[in-house]
């Protein structure tokens, strides 16, 4: 049922977004936008919800770990997996997508790319479009949860850059995926 609600809210978000014209023409220039005069340094660390002992992050930036690369941080998780012929972001991936959305909300100058992928079966070009649809589904959820549309470029690799190279169910499932990618990854 949660999934249906999510689908509904995503649909609403889609409807809202589709009326926003994109002025950007040169898609390659992802980092060229400098609209908001916000400080470029990461403003705040994402909140970690803990019970029991309270920990505090170091304020010394040079010593602090990059939350995007910290294996203990959910932000280090980047992949959303999809069912066959589906672009529905399943509930299990929502906390991760939400964490990235909040990170973008807190870092308005941060840009990301969401890369959609498919398994190898069928037309390469149609798969490219299906991968795009998956990337767009992740983006819609992120914008719904606080990220700005301009912060996220969605692209597709279709079936061209498989993480698993086998021709079996397990490989196909691994490749039905969208990855959230930061510029310095």
């Amino acid at each position: 049922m949660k999934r249906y609600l999510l689908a509904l809210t995503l649909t609403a978000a889609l409807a809202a977004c589709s009326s926003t014209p994109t002025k950007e023409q040169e898609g390659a220039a992802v980092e060229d936008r400098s609209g908001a005069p916000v400080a470029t340094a990461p403003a705040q660390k994402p909140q970690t919800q803990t019970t029991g002992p309270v920990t505090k992050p170091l304020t010394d930036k040079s010593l602090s770990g990059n939350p995007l690369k910290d294996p203990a941080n959910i932000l280090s998780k980047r992949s959303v997996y999809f069912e066959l012929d589906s672009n529905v972001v399943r509930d299990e991936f929502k906390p991760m997508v939400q964490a990235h959305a909040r990170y973008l909300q807190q870092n308005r100058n941060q840009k990301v790319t969401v890369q959609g992928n498919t398994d190898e079966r069928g037309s390469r070009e149609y798969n490219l479009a299906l991968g795009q649809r998956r990337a767009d589904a992740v983006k819609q959820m992120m914008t719904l949860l606080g990220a700005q549309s301009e912060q996220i470029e969605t692209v597709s690799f279709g079936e061209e850059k498989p993480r698993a190279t086998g021709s079996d169910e397990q490989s196909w499932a691994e490749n039905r995926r969208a990855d959230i990618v930061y510029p310095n990854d």
Partner: protein
Amino acid sequence: MIRFLGALLVVSLLLAAGAARAALTIEITGAGASQIPVAIVPFRAEEGLGQRITPVVEADLARSGLFRTVDPGGISPVPHEPEQLNYEQWRARGAEAVVIGAVSKAADGRYDIRFRVMDVAKRTQIAGFVYFASENQLRLTAHKIADVIYEKLTGEPGVFATRITYVVKRGSRYELHVADADGYGAQSVLSSNEPIISPAWSPDGTRLAYVSFEQKKPVVYVQSLLSGGRQAVAAFRGSNSSPAWSPDGRQLAVTLTRDGNSQIYLINADGSGVPRRLTQSSAIDTEANFSPDGQSILFTSDRGGGPQIYRMPVGGGPAQRVTFDGSYNVSPRHSPDGKSFTFIQRNGGRFNVAVQDFASRQVQVLTDGGVDESPSFAPNSRMILYASRVGGRGILAAVSSDGRVKQRFTADAGDVREPAWSPVVNK
């Protein structure tokens, strides 16, 4: 003859552009319903050439599946002129036509290659031509001769003097290759660590449009085969893919996601100007392909649920669905004669090449490979080139539009995919 020299020029420039590569080998796995018996007599003085002519002609004709070559051995003297022909001997061997010819040195140092196609029953000349060629044009000349024989005896234009392009993946390396239609003389025109897909020939055969992922996303490029220079013509925000040339070579239909979902736009082939959106749907619209008259496009859309093939006027207007068999029909390509289109149809998890007639709406499934993709017509509408897989490796294959003749291309190494057959170069 001017037109012939133009083609030679293009090819010799191509040869200069890159190192020669290992050839594709083509084996025939099916034949035409009836085969025309033809004898190709070795041309006078061709033994002296670096590349003999008649073996190439004979291989071309045999590979088409429409000819049976009659052994010309043991006839003495070997005929090179019409008056030397003993028609009774050739009739006894079952030949309907005999090809004779001779090679000599022209005054300018090139070779003078003249040949005649003789009708055995009528004892008359069907065709006779002379070509002038330098050493590195001998193979092309042989293909031109095969084209003449093919056209005179089948009534359809031959396509032996054309080329094919395809992508080879070796390890993590991708190369875009151009080879002669018989697989000979393959050379790399682009090499990349990122995928290359969807190569498409410009109508004049001098440029290739393709999608490259080298910028960490799909971007459409147009590359000149003459200079090797290239240009990103669609690099908008999001994904850019599926280039299709307009018949006048000035525009490309491409799939862009700059405004949201995958939609088809028209752009100038030189990358100038602002894209004009052709399709207006909230679904996926992609894989555009122009009709030969340039008036309409076929494309793949899942606006009705699963992917099906639709047709719409380029000038604007509603799209009409044209495929109704099955739940997955993709990758449409018009036949150059405009009468039909080829596409990939999925049946029970198997992907095969099919062809549909526009007038009768009759669908014929032509292959049974199960993993076939990316079909494209030869410029005479007779053969369809496509990608398949055998033993876990990508290969190219071709099937005649009636499903009878089947060819398989094999490369020395690597995965071969994304083929496209060049147009006939008319300049």
